[in-house]
């Protein structure tokens, strides 16, 4: 656990670069790791792996369905394929391929998806998928991970190589504050408790973790103390950490760069409604598509700003 006031990141890097760096490291460490990319090698930061291990890198062209099928086939023979494309083309475009050839067939494929959510920015709604967490967590056998910064993405990329089964790893495009460290352990399915408080639990995933930390600092200055939990693994979700925190604070806010339907908020709501019904406020995109714009401007416009988390926390506290 950390003192919120001690979290003052000075450096920023994109989470996709954390993925690229870890993939290159896996290339050196594990000869069974192979990578496939559908014409977005630079965007996914897969070029270091591609240049260093050309025999184990497969450029598939703009043909994502074939890429997913090839990845499933490469597991037969003991390979661990990492596929790379944007989150939209990693999920919705190839849902049935993932469903049959990876999830149902229990193939050890790591579906690595960049440019998720609104923070993809200027390319607009065609590319800003806000439904991917929901799509992937509905699939039996699928593990779903959405890391929060460069080093957490780096560590998650390494960790999923030791997870025997399909994984959806979701990360993003923009440079984002770095507040985890290279040596911070990453355990799949285990929440990271960032701060301890008694008034409200704020549960966040992905880029929204940084906003949750800032909101908790502001709330602290206003006299509210917050439990801040980073749920990086949305499936399997850390029920114990959620229930321990919420049984103390008695109210919860979830924050995610995703549609309010099907994502982190719903995953948490399912845990709570079954075990500990609790006032719960969502900070999420309100069932709409995004648009072109600068990442932080989009987060603000679509109700995902720091101030939105603060307001949601106060509302949740009032509902206790």
């Amino acid at each position: 656990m950390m003192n919120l006031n001690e979290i003052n990141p000075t450096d920023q890097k994109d989470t996709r670069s954390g993925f690229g760096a870890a993939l290159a490291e896996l290339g050196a460490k594990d000869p069974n790791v192979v990578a496939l990319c559908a014409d977005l090698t630079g965007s996914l930061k897969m070029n270091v792996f591609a240049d260093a291990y050309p025999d184990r890198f497969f450029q598939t062209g703009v043909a994502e369905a074939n890429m997913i099928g090839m990845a499933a086939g490469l597991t037969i023979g003991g390979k661990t394929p990492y596929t790379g494309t944007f989150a939209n083309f990693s999920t919705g475009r190839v849902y049935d391929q993932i469903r049959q050839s990876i999830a149902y067939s229990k193939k050890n494929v790591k579906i690595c998806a960049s440019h998720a959510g609104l923070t993809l920015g200027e390319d607009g709604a065609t590319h800003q998928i806000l439904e991917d967490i929901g799509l992937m967590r509905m699939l039996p056998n699928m593990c779903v991970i959405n890391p929060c910064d460069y080093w957490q993405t780096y560590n998650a990329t390494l960790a999923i190589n030791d997870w025997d089964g399909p994984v959806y790893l979701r990360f993003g495009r923009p440079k984002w504050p770095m507040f985890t460290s290279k040596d911070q352990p990453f355990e799949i399915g285990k929440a990271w408790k960032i701060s301890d408080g008694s008034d409200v639990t704020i549960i966040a995933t992905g880029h929204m973790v940084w906003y949750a930390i800032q909101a908790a600092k502001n709330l602290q200055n206003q006299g509210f103390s917050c439990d801040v939990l980073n749920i990086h693994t949305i499936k399997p979700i850390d029920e114990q950490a959620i229930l321990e925190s919420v049984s103390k604070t008695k109210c919860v806010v979830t924050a995610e760069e995703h549609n309010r339907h099907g994502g982190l908020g719903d995953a948490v709501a399912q845990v709570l409604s079954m075990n500990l019904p609790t006032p719960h406020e969502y900070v999420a995109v309100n069932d709409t598509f995004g648009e072109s714009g600068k990442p932080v401007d989009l987060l603000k416009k679509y109700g995902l700003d720091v101030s939105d988390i603060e307001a949601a926390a106060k509302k949740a506290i009032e509902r206790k």
Partner: protein
Amino acid sequence: MANTQDLEQLSTQIRRDILRMVHAVSSGHPGGSLGCADFFTALYGSVMKYDPKKFTMDGKNEDIFFLSNGHISPVWYATLARHGFFSVDELETFRKIDSRLQGHPTTAEDLPGVRMASGSLGQGLSVAIGAALAKKLNNDPHTVYSLHGDGELQEGQCWEAAMAAPHLKADNLIATIDYNNRQIDGDVSNVMSLGDLKAKWEAFGWTTLEMDGNDMQTVLNTLSVAKSHCGKGKPVVIIMKTEMGAGVDFMMGTHKWHGVAPNDEQLAQALNQLEETIGDY
């Protein structure tokens, strides 16, 4: 290695198995299964190198096979059982609850012989390419075989895969197309024509062969020729002309038996045309 006559007798028995399996549950896909019985028998009875008693998911150091058009599972299950992957008695569980012999093949039930779920069409060629590339990375000189329906080629993913295999030099892959020109809604040429199928595959960069899939000696010879093309930089495709319902007169010449099981009377009539050679399950 079995001789051609033995293989013909085996394929007749497999045809009986198919008919009895789908009849027992009044569901399943007999037409394409009957049409491909000779191909499966040749593949598992003579061509492929494998050990049915030591089945592994990885299939290292043996030939492996993927069925992309998973609805013809009856012919695959009967073939696997008749070649020792599991007991022939298990064929009577086909499509019943708690069975490993699901309507469409799956890995979820740990059935020996099956390495990938199939049924949703168009996915198997991509998978076969991936497995072929894994064999190359493993310096495993064995061959990957796959089977695809002709109607299935209407799925766009097939052509993504058709483009990828020559580009990636998957020359340890022999894909076969079951070209019976029948699909659920009618003749393939009417539903959505494949045009000049041989020219299409050649244009995509495949070594393209054609064969009569209902003549055992031709199937054996062509698979042998296909094998001789492996390792020469290009994947191999065989356009296999078959007759849907082959071996049962009233099931041939129509698409009607794609996914319909015979009733008691039709079963008896069909079995009369197929001599019990090895013994029914």
